[in-house]
Every structure is written in structure tokens, then in C-alpha cells.
């Protein structure tokens, strides 16, 4: 039962190579809403299974999770497609829920871990939506294909910047506090895993900067000047901005549990 439980958890809090299934599935989902649903729900069965198992995962599984997280963080550096990048980042982030569950001082019972998973997933919902929007406006959400979006689609670019910042664990979003707590609690038990987590964090920053540069920086491409692609409406941008503010407040809220 335990082995099967861990296998199920390893599928939904994806460990390599099971993680390939999630990314394949994501690539096959054509609709934005279904992708967003996938980001929202995928890690929750894994969290539930860890709660049911009710024991600290073995050390080798934690190292497996850490290695998966590094693998996808590194692979994200070379990715130019926003949907694919979002999938890799989600895989890398969710894998870190294993050490969060094992070392976190505030994860008893599974509810806190479920909230953390939700906090980590929230930026990916926004990014999935933005990727869909870019695909419909530009034909593809591919970094470098048509840069300079800051000039042609400023509101969309602003949200993309916020989404990427949240995805790479910038304070004070929930992801920052989850990573901070996981690193700090992992440190006395397994300094090696703590070091891997901070390395992953560094790789996220690098890949985030690369993906942003591919989209928002540069001269506006010739096609966009001829009129294709329309920016977000003011109301939609404000609503999404408010959602981001709520995410920040949730981050500050989640931080209260850290001590």
C-alpha cells in the first residue's frame, strides 16, 4: 500500500520520469481553461496521498524530488515557449513539495501543504492564461519570435512580468514563503537538500529573466505595428492586478504559519 501510495504521489507531485506524463498531457490540452484546471488540480491528489500515508517520505525520495526539481529548473533555462516553460516551472516547483512535506514545521495534517501547493500553482494559472492569450493574438507564445511586447501590449506585458516574478518565488508571494520555510527547515536535517533548493531558486531567476527578455524587451516587431494583437482591456487588467494583490496578501498570510 505504501509503495503504491508513493507511486501515486510521485505522479501528481511529479518526479522524473513520471513528470513527463504531466508535461505531455499539458501539451495535448488545446484549451486554455483545461490547462488552467490542470495546473490548479494536478498536485492536489499527490498532497492528499502524502497526507494519507502520514509519514515522512524516505530520504532517497527526497533526493529524487530535489533532482527532479533541478532537472526541470535547468531545462527551463533553454525553453522559449511560454506554455512549455510554465509546465517545467510547475514540475520543478511541485517536486519541492516533497521536502516541504518532509521538513516543513507547519505541514501537519496535509491542509497546510495543500494551501502551499495552491500558492505555488496560482502564478501558473495566470501564465497559462497569458500564454493562451498570446497564442491567440500572435499565433504562438514563443519568446524572441516577436519581442518588444512592452510597447505593443503594455498591460499584457505587465501581467506577464508579474506572473513570471510570482512563478520564480519573488517575495512576498506564497511561493517565496514556501521555499523559504522549506529551505530553513531542511537545513538542519539535510543541508544537501537545502543547498539544492537554493540552487533551484537561482535557476528559476535565471530562466525567468531569459523568458521575460524574449517577450517584453526589444524593438516592436514589424507585424505588430500593422495592427495584429490587441492589448488587454483596462478592466481585465485591473481585475487580474487585483488577483495578484490577493496572491501577495495570501503570501503574507501564509508566512504567519512559519513560526
Amino acid at each position: 500500500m505504501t509503495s503504491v501510495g508513493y507511486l501515486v504521489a510521485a505522479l501528481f507531485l511529479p518526479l522524473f520520469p513520471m513528470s513527463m506524463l504531466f508535461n505531455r498531457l499539458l501539451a495535448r490540452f488545446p484549451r486554455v481553461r483545461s490547462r488552467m484546471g490542470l495546473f490548479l488540480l494536478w498536485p492536489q491528489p499527490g498532497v492528499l496521498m502524502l497526507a494519507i500515508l502520514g509519514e515522512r517520505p524516505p530520504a532517497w525520495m527526497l533526493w529524487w524530488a530535489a533532482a527532479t526539481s533541478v532537472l526541470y529548473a535547468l531545462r527551463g533555462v533553454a525553453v522559449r515557449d511560454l506554455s512549455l516553460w510554465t509546465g517545467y516551472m510547475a514540475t520543478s516547483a511541485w517536486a519541492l513539495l516533497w521536502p516541504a512535506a518532509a521538513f516543513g514545521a507547519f505541514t501537519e495534517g496535509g491542509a497546510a501543504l495543500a494551501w502551499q501547493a495552491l500558492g505555488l500553482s496560482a502564478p501558473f494559472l495566470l501564465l497559462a492564461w497569458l500564454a493562451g492569450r498570446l497564442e491567440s493574438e500572435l499565433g504562438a507564445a514563443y519568446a524572441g519570435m516577436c519581442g518588444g511586447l512592452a510597447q505593443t501590449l503594455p498591460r499584457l506585458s505587465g501581467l506577464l512580468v508579474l506572473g513570471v516574478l510570482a512563478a520564480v518565488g519573488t517575495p512576498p508571494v506564497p511561493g517565496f514563503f514556501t521555499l523559504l520555510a522549506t529551505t530553513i527547515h531542511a537545513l538542519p536535517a539535510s543541508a544537501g537538500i537545502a543547498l539544492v533548493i537554493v540552487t533551484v531558486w537561482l535557476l528559476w531567476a535565471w530562466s525567468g529573466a531569459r523568458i521575460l527578455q524574449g517577450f517584453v524587451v526589444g524593438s516592436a516587431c514589424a507585424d505588430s505595428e500593422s495592427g495584429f494583437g490587441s492589448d488587454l482591456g483596462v478592466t481585465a487588467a485591473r481585475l487580474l492586478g487585483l488577483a495578484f494583490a490577493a496572491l501577495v496578501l495570501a503570501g503574507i498570510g501564509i508566512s504567519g504559519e512559519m513560526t
Partner: protein
Amino acid sequence: MEGLVAVVFLLPLAAGIATYLAAPALKRDSVRISIVGMVATCAIAALLLGSALAGKPVGEVRLGASWGVLLFDPLSALMAFVVSAISLIVHVYSIRYMAEEPGYPRFFVLLDLMTAALLLMVSAGDLITLLIAWHLIGVLLYFLLGHDMTSRSAHRYAAWTLLTYRFGDLPLLLAAGLLYHAFGTWSLPDIFSHLDSVPDTRTLFGLPLADTAAALVGLAAFARSAQFLLHTWLPYTMSGPTPVSALMHAGIVNAGGFLINRFAPLFVTTHGVLHWIFFVGLVTAVIGSVLMLAQNDIKKALGYSTMGQMGFMIMECGVGAFSLAVYHLFAHGLFKGTLFLGAGGVISEARKDDGVPKDDLYTFVIERRPARRRQPWLLMAAVTLAVPAIILVLAHWLVANDLFQKQGAVILLFFGWVTGAQLIFSTYRMRTENTWRLMGMILFSFTIVVVGYTLISHAFDVFLYPDPAFRDRIYGAAGIDILWFDVLVILMTLVVVFGWLAAYYAEQNGRHGETRFDALWRGFYRLVARELFVASLYARFSAALVGIATRLNVLLRWS
């Protein structure tokens, strides 16, 4: 009064948000909100500094239950004033300088947020708040440096900065983790109090907690203050707007010195960490200065000049002169900020008139025409070596008569002596009608600088660390065995004097044809001109990592 510490951080934050919200309606006029907010912030920071100078006791404000503690102490009051004053100057300067740039209100919003993050950093009273502020500064600097959204090169180098800063965030995070686990609190005053009572606490792998945490804090400071091997971002970030360069060189890059001062109670319990902080600072100061001399790009030269200055600042921390490092960052902030903000006007004026007076100094430095008649060299050598030493010792004796008990003070005196002697050595051959008058003027200036520097740095020392016993403990933590210290001082003196004699001998005898050192010298120059290949190595390393990532993606079929 403590509540004002929170106000001083919240004001620029609120001004930034208000400017952003008002921008669609008010357009460019929305930046007035930012300016008014900054004036108010600076006024309140001045009030805080005034009350700290008046001797108001240390206090704190709690914005949250487990974190969000803001400290009111001499260091936070002084730094808050420095940050807000520099930020106000940059704000005012930017009103006209950035007027033609797209994203005008966005620039001011980012400036406000950066000011808020810096003020949060200097007043952070717990590790989580400090980590948040430390992290946010890197992110905001990335967007400020990359303000021109059309410039790929600006963003490329802004990303270098971001990565170096993130690299520096991580050791601070690990240090925070170790301290939290040892004492079960995030509060900095509580942690320092625990450290004072149990300085020999052990941490991971049986390592001494104080030394391990201090080394990690030092590493975080190195990344932020562009110490050697973590410096490449600094000379390359000149593509950003000039006001950002001014803010960065005058304020942000000094954060390393601030961090070491904030953790002073940690450093006094260490054994040897300050020595390698001194070493890193020394290497950075030397390499930064050498690289600056070899650059033909004025902006890069300014970048390396800042690197050299940061090396000196960290070196001062390494010898235990913590408050001197704060004075240094203050003074460097003022002169480097003035240089950057004045650069545009100077260039514009220089196009009309170079403004260089064709006087004795010009003929000596530019035309390299030394005086034909020289004074007796033995007399000049005696003046060169003895006078700066006498002035320095007398000036320091004014403020502390136990001067030679503090190794850090002796090292700083040594540097002062070398600098003063070098000044006299290089100018005594200037073409002038009255050599002794010139020498008198030089010595007079030198005396004013030394006495001013000594008195002001002593005032900083007394203000920041009022407890004399604590000041002695800082110098004690930076000290080494007295025998080794004396040997090193004598050795360094011999090296310097030998260098002077060699330079004098070379000038007296001239050069005849190719010498065996020429090839070596040319090789060294090539190495320095290419900035020791450090940036190239990093670029290759990152390209290799991207290559590996791409191959992995292809191998795993992008899933």
C-alpha cells in the same frame, strides 16, 4: 517616535502606488506625487536622525506577529537619512533628465519602490524582513536598469546583476536558517543577545555557528558590493539610465558595508572571519583599481572605480573599522552620485571648452614636463616618509591615545602613510617657482584631509557604537597574533619602499631598448585590458549550461 520608522518605509511605498494609480489620469504630472512623497520621506528620516543624535534609546516597531519588525537605532536612522536624501536628489534630477523617455511615470514608481525596499532593509529588525528587502532590491534594480524596454543589451546586463544579487541572497538565507535553528527566533536583537551569552554555539557538522553564519553574511555582502569574482555586473550596467547609475553607485552597491555593520554583534564573536573579509576587500581594491586604469571606456572605468572603493569599504570592515566603512559608504555615495549626475553637464561644457587650466599641474601631469632643478633627494625622501607619518599619528592621537593597541587602526594609518608619501613622492618634481610653497600647500591639504577624516570617522564610531568595550571587541575580532602582525607591517613597508626606490632608479637611469620584463608587462596589460577574462569565463559557463539544458530537452523530447 519609533512609529516614524514605519512611516519612513511606508511613505515611498504609498507614493509609488499612488503614482501608478494616478498615471492614467494625470499622465506625466503624476510624478509630482512621487516627488512630494520623497520630500516627506526625507524630512521624516532627518527627524529620525536628529532624535538618534539627541540620544533617543533604541526601539522597535512591529508590523506583524512573526516578522515585520522595524528597528530604530543609530545605524538605521543614519542609513535611512542617507538613502532618502540620495533618493530625493535622484528623483529631482530625473524630473528633467527622464522627461523625454517613454515610461516616465513607471520610472518614478520603480524609484519609489526601490527606496521603500532600501529603507525596509536598513531598518529590518528580523531576518525574514531583511531577506525580503534584500531580495526585492535585486529584482527592482533589474527593472530599473532595464527601464529602456527596447535595449536588449541593457536587459542582458541587468540580468547579470539580478543573478549576482540572487546568488548573494542565498548565503544570507542559509545564515538566517542557521541562526533561527540555533536560537528559535527571527529577531535580530534577540539573536545577538543569545550569541553574546553563548558565543560557542555549534551548528551543522559541528561547525562554530558564529563563524559559519558570519562567513555566509560576508558572502552575501560580497555579491552586493561587487567584490572580486562577483563584480562583473558592476562595470557593465552603464546602459541603464544615469539616475539609476547614480542611485546604484551611491547607494545600493554600499549595502554590503551596511550588512556587515548590521551583523556587527555576530562578527565580534567570530575567530578569523574578518581576516578573509579583509583579504577579499584588499584583492578587490587592488584589482578594481588596476582594471580601472586599463579601461579606455570612461563608463567602465567608473564602474571599476566603484569596485575599488567597495574593496576599500569591505577591507575597512575586515580590520574592524566598521563605522569607518559606514562613513566611507556615505562619502563615496556623495562623490560618486555627484560624478554621475554631473557627468552630462560636464560633457556638454567640455564640448565648448575643456576647462583645463594650463598651470603647473597641467604641465606636470599632462605634458609630463618635470622641473629641471630638483631638491636634494635625501631631504625630499625624509620629508616624503616622515611628514605624513607624523601628521597621521598626531591626528589619530587627538581622538584615541591607545591607537597602537588596535591593529586595524595601525593598518589604516599605514594606508594613509603610503597614500600621503606617494602624493609627495609624485609631486615634488613639479615645475614650480617655489618648491617649498608648493610642498607646504600639499602638506596643508593633506593635514586638513587627515584631521577631517579622523574626527568625522571618530564621530561615526561614537555615534554608531557608543559602547567603548564593544568597539574594542570589534578590533579584537579583527586582530591577529602580534608577532605576525609586526612582521607583516615591516614586510609591507619594505615592499613599498623598495617599489619607490625602484621607480626612482628607473626614472633616473632611463630605459635603453627592450628589457626582459617588457614581454611580461605586455602580457599583464593584455590580461588586465581583457578584465582578467572573468566576464568571458562566466559567459562561457552560462552558454555551456544553456547548451546542456537544450540537449536535455531534445533528449527528453521536450516533456
